[in-house]
């Protein structure tokens, strides 16, 4: 083996190791679908003034169960662990916890502000009082973008990186729109950040799988 061949071998192997990710895309597809369904149903519910017997957003809690199975399965299929894997796992874990904390914080803000808003409505006779929930969406969209951009950058996955940027664009726009449009923006963000990159990962993963002939 010559020196040139040695360097070529090193370069080839490092490339092989870096292209080892065989993400099936199941997780991003699951969350992209769940969040976009919840947002679109909420959008149409507000737009056409109908009610559901349950809160559609409870679907996000139910989706945690398949997510646990997906995580265990993908962990089992991963034959090599990179230095960035631990970091990305921590980032998504922190993201999940932050979402729950934000739900808790928002619920407390709404319960505190609502009586004040109701009082203001009766006293001022103004019908269009700002709704806090309209601003709350911006915080969620801001959070959606953070782990998505980090993952897209670390994995060199441009669709996910662009999806994360779209989340932040939707975040800025949602500051100036009401809750109805915020739901549409949330759906756009979920589809761009997770559903589309997830489908692209799935297509790549399916192509790489050996065919059972």
């Amino acid at each position, binding site marked *: *083996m010559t*020196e*040139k061949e*040695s*360097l070529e*071998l*090193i370069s*080839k*192997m*490092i490339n*092989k*190791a*870096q292209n*080892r990710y065989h993400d099936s895309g199941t997780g991003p597809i699951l969350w992209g679908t769940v969040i976009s369904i919840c947002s679109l149903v909420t959008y149409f519910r507000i737009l056409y003034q109908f009610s559901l017997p349950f809160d559609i957003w409870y679907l996000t809690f139910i989706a945690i169960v398949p997510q646990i199975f997906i995580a265990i399965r993908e962990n*089992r299929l991963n*034959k*090599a*662990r*990179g*230095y960035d*894997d*631990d970091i990305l796992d921590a980032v998504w874990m922190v993201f999940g916890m932050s979402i729950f904390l934000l739900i808790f914080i928002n619920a407390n803000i709404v319960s505190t502000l609502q009586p004040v808003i109701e009082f203001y409505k009766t006293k001022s006779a103004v019908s269009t009082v700002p709704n806090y929930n309209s601003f709350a969406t911006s915080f969620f969209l801001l959070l959606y973008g953070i782990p998505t951009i980090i993952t897209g950058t670390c994995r060199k996955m441009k669709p996910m990186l662009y999806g994360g940027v779209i989340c932040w664009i939707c975040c800025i726009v949602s500051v100036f729109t009401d809750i109805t449009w915020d739901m549409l923006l949330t759906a756009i963000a979920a589809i761009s950040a997770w559903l589309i990159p997830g489908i692209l990962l799935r297509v790549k993963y399916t192509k790489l799988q050996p065919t059972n002939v």
Partner: protein
Amino acid sequence: MFKELNPILHSQLRLAVVSLLIAVKEAEFTFLKDKTNSTAGNLSVQINKLKEAGYVEVTKQFKDNYPQTTCKMTKKGVDAFEAYVLALQAYMNPTTQ
């Protein structure tokens, strides 16, 4: 004066294994076998040589009732690899020495 290339690393399969392990935190035996297109027997012998040299740490355990061998680079291995790459570069670009 050129430095002598480390004979433990200057072997095709061992260099391939070390190059893979340098890019990841740890890797299973099956991963190394797939990426190097080697036979289990040959790979096992070469990993053992790297282990004896103190370049690679090998952990054997059971996962879902199957034996699982995991390899990772040691500090000594990383240093040896860096020295090997520097020596290669010196061979390739002798004027920079």
